[in-house]
């Protein structure tokens, strides 16, 4: 069984498959926002202990597929291969894990989490909005409204 720190690094490495940052990609990605915190919160929310069990499973698959190497030591392409193996697993719940990780990784970067404080209030511009140029929710788009009648 891995330590909490090792589990966090494994989840971070998993998130990088979906939304990589430096050195894999020039702009900030999952590792830069510590997506592992977001992901582990929701994994344990779904099934208590999953944030521990999933890294163990990824490392087990990694070890058997890539001659004893741990998941964090794999290239992005090799990590992708682990997800492809998982998505064809005999156990239905395990087949779903790449989808769950993908959704959470995308949400960690392109959702609003990076702009919210602990109470959920939006206090700064989320990274995903900076990366996409999205200007956030609006109470109205003036240029698309009718001109007032005189």
């Amino acid at each position, binding site marked *: 069984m891995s330590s909490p720190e090792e589990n966090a690094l494994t989840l971070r490495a998993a998130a990088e*498959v*979906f*939304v*990589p940052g430096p050195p*894999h*990609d020039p*702009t900030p*990605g999952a590792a830069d926002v510590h997506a592992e915190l977001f992901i582990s919160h*929701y994994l344990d*929310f*779904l*099934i208590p202990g999953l944030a521990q069990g999933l890294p163990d499973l990824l490392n087990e698959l990694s070890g058997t597929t890539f001659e004893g190497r741990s998941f964090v030591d794999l290239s*992005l392409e090799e990590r*992708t291969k682990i997800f*492809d193996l998982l998505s064809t697993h005999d156990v*239905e719940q395990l087949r*779903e894990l790449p*989808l769950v990780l*993908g*959704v959470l990784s*995308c*949400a960690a970067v*392109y*959702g*609003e*989490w990076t702009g919210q404080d602990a109470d*959920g209030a*939006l206090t700064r511009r989320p990274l*995903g*909005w900076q*990366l*996409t*140029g*999205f200007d*956030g*929710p*609006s*109470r*109205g*788009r*003036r240029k*698309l*409204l*009718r*001109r*007032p*009648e005189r």
Partner: protein
Amino acid sequence: MAVKSNMPDVLIVGAGGTGAVMAKELAEAGLGVVVLEAGPWHDPQREFNGLEWDMFNPFDSLFRWGPLDRTKAPYPRVRDGIGLLFQTPGVGGNTLHYGANCPRAYIDAIESDWPFRYRDLVPYYYKVEETLPVAVPEVAATKDELFIKGCEAIGIGHVAGPDIRTSGWRMQPNAILPIAEDTDPLVYPATDGCTQCGECIVGCRNPEGTPLERTAKRSTNVSYAPLALKTKHCEFRTGVFVTEVVTEEHEGTLRARAVRYREADGTLKEQDASIIILACGPIETPRLWLSSGLPDNGHVGKYFTTHWFDYISGVFSSEVNMYEGQTSMVRAEFPGYGFFESQGAGPLTFALATSMGPRAVMGEGPWALSGRTWGSALKRRMEAYRRTLMLVVCVDDDGLPESSVSLAPGVSDENNTAPMVRYRASNQTHRKRDWLSRRAAEVLIGAGADPDSIHRADAAPSTVHQHGTMRMGTDPSTSVVSPTGEAHAVQHLFICDTSIFPNGIGGPNPTLTAQAVATMMADGIVRYLSS
């Protein structure tokens, strides 16, 4: 306002897209109505914040399907051959989350499989369109102007609605109030109507300061449910989960007499009624039926259809800003195949819609890439987000008996055994989907998108649209409910949600048709009770 009698004339399970319609129609006819709803009655002004994750993530959002206490995990569901399941609790149900696109069914889809004629539905279409109301937007956003340009560039002509038998593009009939005037500030009452904020699927809360009944998007929590309350004959009990339909033998036949339900604190209660109507949707309605041990003629839970969506996107040289304007303001109809439309989305929705397909394949059609975009490919797509137009394809998919909702042994939530949702697509469904996706890609290229940027998500099936599982028909051996909505096997038990659809109405968005059918059935129930 409570119903005065201990036993209402009608008890409705579910206050979503059709349950609230039934409630309004029956209460206006003077019947005593009780509506039991699993979720809350939200206050959009106070609770909706316009943030994608907070509003509709599948884990702990306001619209997720699970216990009222959102610190608890969502309800487990077993899936086979299908991706995300969209089930939205609360008064309004899935209309809280829908894009409010309200086309009528394709004429030939009704004429081919339904137990009544299209013309029988038309008066009820008009009634719902007037009540919601449904309006065609008079101002198009950039994404919609590009869509029209692309259609015309490849020879897709304009088609006049609302009764559709031929192909063509047209402006989207939306259950959204007419577009508001530009006032300063954009606050009700100076601003009354749609403010084109682009948040339809995130949950409408505009214009700022508006009373519930004048909220721009006409989910049933702001349209039909308030009208039902206004009659003073209708009571909504929210936060209660119906776990069983109770029946009794009556002159040799089975008759529904009550439901059992669980309140938020776990208290179990039973409520009698003369008529019971299920409006829980194509997943929960068959689940409740099967959990109650009601008769199964082999057709309960079968023939599930979803319109098996796909998402086609392309990048332009200038800004599109897909998040501006009503989520979709224009559509292209293809009777026999389905339809596609412009689709606005926030960045997270766009990322998820376009990135989670099967393994990527380089151009096997008029697209440069199909399938998932993970890694740097996703990041480059997201950097072009503001210059991207996304189209959503909805397929006239075949209902197969193996596409079904059943009970999942060994998996349960706090209410009952969990449902298992299975989806399979016929070869014909695959062909239609490929054909529509190709046409959508051609529209994007015709509109000026870079051909090398065209991406087909080849998305997994989801339940954004859902129909079938409790099909309506005249033959009790091949259907579950009669054309009146009453169950063949259980007297006084009606179903009025989209589970009774004999097919996917040809591909168009199902809510308006479901609401028209519910209105028609309400007329029948009033006649039935008065006789």
